[in-house]
C-alpha cells in the first residue's frame, strides 16, 4: 500500500537506488523507491558487456546479469517501489521533513519523508556542450541512446559510425557497432590520451582495427536530412582545433560519448552546493549534502566507472539515513575538510569526522607512472604503477588509522612521484 509518510524516499532505481533501498529496508526504515522509467535497473540493464560485479559479487558479470542479482536481493527483502513515476520536484520543509512531488500514472502525488536518498544518476553531455558546429540532421545519438536502441530494442542506428569521445562508453559502443556489422570509421578524442581504460582500447578498438584519433576534435557535422560526414581537425596544446589540419570523414551516424554529468537540477533548486570538479554535491562521510537529511549516491554523487562502488555508496547513504533518523539529524561534528594535493582532480567525500571508517573516491588530473598515493596526516601510502584519469582511485581508511590524525585540521590526499 502506498502511504504518504516515509522515513526515507529513494529517488531513481539504478544500482545505487536499489542498493540504498535494500539496505534501508534491512535497517528497518520505512522506505519507498521511485523510478521514472517502466523498468527498474538504470544503466546496467542496457549494458550487455561483462565487467560488472568483480568486487561486489566476486564474479565477472554482464551489466544485465549484475542488475538481476540485485533485483533478486531486492525481492527477498521486499522493497516497495513505484515505476513510471517521475520525481518532478522536492520541497524542503524542515531538517526532518521534505516533500517529494511525483508524477505517476495515477496522478500527481506528494509524498513526505524525513530523509531522501537521491540516486537519479547522470545525464550525457550533448553536442552543444562540446562545441560541435554545423547541421543538425538525423543520425546523431548519444552513446546511451544508441546503446538502448541496440541492446534493448535490437535496432542498429546506422551503418557508418564516427564516435566522439574515447571514454569507456565510447569504446564499448565502438565494439558493439563493429560486432553488429556496422563500420566504425573512427573514434575521435580531444585529449592526448584515451579517456577509457587501456584494456578497453585493446579489446574494443584494436581487436576490430578501429582507428583512434587522439588530440583531434570533430568541429562540424554536415548533412541535409541524415548525417553525411563530419569535419575533424587536430587540436593544439590549448585544445583549439588547427584549421589547416581539417579533414573529412564520410559517415551516416555520429555517436557522442563525451562524458556524463551528475543529474542534480532538482536539488540545486532547493539550495544544494556542488563541487565544480565532480559536478556532484559536496558531502560528508555519510554522503549527506549541505541540505540536512538529503543523501546522494551513485552517478548523481560522482561519475563512477565501477558499479561496485555505486552499490557501496548506495548502502552507505542508507546507513547515513538511519543514523540521521536515530539522532534526529547528523550530530554536529568537528568536520575536517578533505584537501586535494598534487595530481588530484577531485576527491569525495569532502568532509570527514575522523570518528569512523571512510572510503575516499578520487581521480587524478593526468596519467602518471610509478607513483605513491599518500594521505600524509595518517601516514597512509600506496604504491601504484599507473594512475589514469579514467580509473577512480578508491582508498579505504579505518577509524583506527584516522584516530592518529585526531589533531589534524584537514585530511589531504596526493600523488607523489616514487623515487
Amino acid at each position, binding site marked *: 500500500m502506498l502511504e504518504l509518510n516515509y522515513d526515507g524516499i529513494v529517488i531513481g532505481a539504478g544500482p545505487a537506488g536499489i542498493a540504498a533501498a535494500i539496505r534501508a529496508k534491512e535497517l528497518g526504515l520505512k522506505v519507498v523507491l521511485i523510478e521514472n522509467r517502466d523498468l527498474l535497473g538504470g544503466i546496467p*540493464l542496457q549494458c*550487455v*558487456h*561483462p565487467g560488472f560485479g568483480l568486487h561486489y559479487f566476486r564474479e565477472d*558479470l*554482464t551489466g*544485465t*546479469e549484475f542488475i*538481476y542479482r540485485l533485483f533478486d536481493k531486492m525481492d527477498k527483502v521486499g522493497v516497495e517501489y513505484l515505476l513510471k513515476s517521475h520525481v518532478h520536484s522536492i520541497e524542503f520543509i524542515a531538517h526532518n521533513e521534505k516533500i517529494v512531488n511525483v508524477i505517476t500514472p495515477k496522478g500527481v502525488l506528494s509524498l513526505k519523508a524525513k530523509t531522501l536518498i537521491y540516486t537519479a544518476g547522470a545525464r550525457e553531455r550533448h553536442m552543444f556542450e562540446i562545441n560541435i558546429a554545423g547541421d543538425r540532421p538525423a543520425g546523431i545519438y548519444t552513446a546511451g541512446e544508441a546503446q538502448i536502441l*541496440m*541492446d*534493448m*530494442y*535490437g*535496432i542498429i542506428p546506422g551503418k557508418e559510425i564516427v564516435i566522439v569521445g574515447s571514454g569507456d562508453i565510447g569504446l564499448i559502443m565502438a565494439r*558493439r557497432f563493429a*560486432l*553488429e*556489422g556496422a563500420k566504425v570509421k573512427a573514434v575521435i578524442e580531444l585529449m592526448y590520451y584515451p579517456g577509457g*581504460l*587501456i*584494456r578497453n*582500447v*585493446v*579489446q574494443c578498438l584494436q*581487436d576490430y582495427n578501429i582507428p583512434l584519433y587522439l588530440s583531434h576534435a570533430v568541429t562540424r557535422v554536415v548533412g541535409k536530412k541524415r548525417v553525411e560526414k563530419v569535419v575533424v581537425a587536430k587540436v593544439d596544446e590549448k585544445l583549439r582545433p588547427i584549421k589547416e589540419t581539417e579533414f573529412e570523414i564520410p559517415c551516416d551516424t555520429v555517436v557522442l560519448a563525451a562524458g556524463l554529468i551528475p543529474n542534480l537540477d532538482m536539488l540545486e533548486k532547493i539550495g544544494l552546493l556542488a563541487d565544480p570538479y565532480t559536478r556532484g554535491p559536496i558531502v560528508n562521510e555519510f554522503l549527506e549534502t549541505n541540505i540536512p537529511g538529503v543523501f546522494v549516491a551513485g552517478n548523481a554523487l560522482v561519475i563512477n566507472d565501477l558499479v561496485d562502488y555505486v552499490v557501496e555508496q548506495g548502502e552507505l547513504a542508507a546507513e547515513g539515513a538511519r543514523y540521521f533518523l536515530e539522532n534526529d539529524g547528523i550530530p554536529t561534528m568537528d568536520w575536517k575538510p578533505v584537501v586535494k594535493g598534487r595530481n588530484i582532480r577531485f576527491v569525495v567525500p569532502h568532509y570527514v569526522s575522523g570518528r569512523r571508517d571512510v572510503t575516499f573516491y578520487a581521480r587524478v588530473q593526468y596519467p602518471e607512472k610509478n607513483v605513491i598515493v599518500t594521505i600524509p596526516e595518517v601516514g597512509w601510502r600506496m604504491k601504484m*604503477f*599507473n594512475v589514469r584519469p579514467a*580509473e577512480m582511485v578508491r582508498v579505504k581508511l579505518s577509524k583506527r588509522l584516522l584516530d592518529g590524525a585526531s589533531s589534524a585540521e584537514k585530511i589531504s590526499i596526493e600523488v607523489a612521484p616514487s623515487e
Partner: protein
Amino acid sequence: MNEEDLICIICPTSCTLRVCKELSGSLRVEGALCPKGVEYAIREVNDPRRVVISVVKVVGGDLPTVSVKTSKPVPKKCIPEIMKATASIELKAPVEIGQVVIRDICGVDVIATRRVKKVNSIYLFKL
C-alpha cells in the same frame, strides 16, 4: 628472435607485456606483475580468445531482445560465426538468465544474460 608488445587485459592495472620468442621456440614474457599476465600473453600470442556478447530477438516478451554471451571465451576467429548465428535465431518469451540459447557452437554455449517476461500485449516496435 621475435618480440611483441601486448597490454594485459585481465585486470585494470594494464601491464605492458613484452613477449619474446626464444630460438628454442618457447615464449618468454616480461613486464607482468602477476602470473595471470604471463598466462594471458602466451595465450594471446598462440590462441587469442574473447567472450562474445550480442542480443537475440525475442517474440512475446516485455522486451524485443535478450542479451547473450558465450559461456567461455572463444577463439577470436570464431567471432563472426557466432554473430551470424545469434542474428539468425528468434526466441519465444519467457527467457531466463543462464538459459542456453545456442548449444555447442565453436566449443561453447551461448547463454542469455537478461530475463524476458512473457506478455500477451503486443509490442509495436517492429524490428
